[in-house]
C-alpha cells in the first residue's frame, strides 16, 4: 500500500532485530520465540482440548498479521499468486502441490519429534546454548542442504 520498505530488508537489520525480539519474549514472559509450539496450541484449541496456552494462539495469529502488515501495507502490496516460483519453473501445479504437502508434513512431523523447528531450536535453543539445539540445528542444516542437492540432480540442475 505505502511502499516504504525495500523488497528485501538486508540480513544485518532483520537478524539483529530477531535477536532482540528473542530476548524480548524471554524478558517479558520467559518463553522462546518458537513457531511449532504455536501450531500445536492452535490445533489443540480448534479441537477444544484442555490446558491450551491461549496466548500462543494469539501469537500464531500475530505471525500472519505481521506478515500482512509488511507484505500488503508497508510494501506496495503483493498480488495473489501460487508462490514457489523456482519450483513452478520446473514442475506443473499438480506435482508441486503434492511435493509441498509431503514436504510440509515431513517437516511438521520432524519438528514434533525434535521438539522444535528453525525458530525453537535453530534460533532460541542455540541462543540459550543448549547442546541438544546445536545438534538439531546442525542435523537439519545438513539434511536440508543434501536434500536440495538431490533435488537439483533429480531435475538435471534446473531446480
Amino acid at each position, binding site marked *: 500500500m505505502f511502499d516504504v520498505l525495500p523488497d528485501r530488508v538486508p540480513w544485518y537489520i532483520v537478524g539483529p532485530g530477531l535477536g532482540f525480539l528473542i530476548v524480548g519474549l*524471554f524478558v517479558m514472559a520467559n518463553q522462546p520465540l518458537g513457531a511449532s509450539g504455536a501450531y500445536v496450541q492452535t490445533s489443540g484449541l480448534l479441537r477444544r482440548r484442555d490446558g491450551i496456552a491461549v496466548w500462543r494462539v494469539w501469537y500464531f495469529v*500475530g505471525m500472519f*498479521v505481521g506478515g500482512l502488515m509488511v507484505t500488503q501495507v508497508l510494501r506496495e502490496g503483493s498480488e495473489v499468486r501460487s508462490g514457489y516460483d523456482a519450483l513452478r519453473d520446473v514442475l506443473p501445479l499438480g506435482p508441486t502441490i503434492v511435493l509441498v504437502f*509431503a*514436504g510440509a*508434513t515431513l*517437516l511438521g512431523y520432524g519438528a*514434533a*519429534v525434535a521438539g522444535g523447528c528453525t525458530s525453537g531450536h535453530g534460533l532460541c535453543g542455540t541462543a540459550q546454548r543448549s547442546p541438544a539445539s546445536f545438534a538439531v540445528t546442525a*542435523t537439519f542444516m545438513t539434511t536440508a542442504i543434501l536434500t536440495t542437492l538431490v533435488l537439483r540432480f533429480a531435475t538435471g540442475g534446473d531446480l
Partner: protein
Amino acid sequence: MKLNLIGLLFGALFGGLLAGAQLHEYDTIHAMLRLDEPDVFLLMGSAIAVSAPLLWLIERRGMKTPFGGEFSLSRSMPQRHHIKGGALFGIGWAIAGTCPAPALVMVSSGALLGLIAIPGIFLGLHIHERESQNQLHVGDGEHRNLQPTGK
C-alpha cells in the same frame, strides 16, 4: 489477557521481520540451501550473536519476568529423537522450502500454496501426537510449560 496481547505483538513483529527479509518465499530458502547466497545464514547467525550474550547476561544477573516468573533458560543434552527429528525436519524443509512461521507469512503475502503447506505442517505434528499417546506435545525447542506461571 495482557499475555494474549504480548503474544499477538511478538507474533506480529516476528512475522513482520520474516516478511521483511523475504523468508516466506520459497526462492529465498531454496537459494540459501543451494548455497547460492549467504544472507539467510548470516541473518540467523546475527540473530544468535545478538541474543545469546544478552540472554547469558540476564541469566547471570537473574530477573523476575512480568508474565513468566523467574527468568530461566533451559539446556539439555542431545538424544536420539533430536537427531531423528532434526534429520526429517531438514528434508521436509528443503522440499517444502518453508517452515512453520514463514508458511503463515507466505499466505499473508498472497502465495496460495502456503495454504497447502500449513495443513501439511498440522498433519505432521498431529501424526506425532497420535504416536505419543494423544498427549499435546510441546514443540518449542528447549522448553518448559508453555503456559507461563505468575499472573
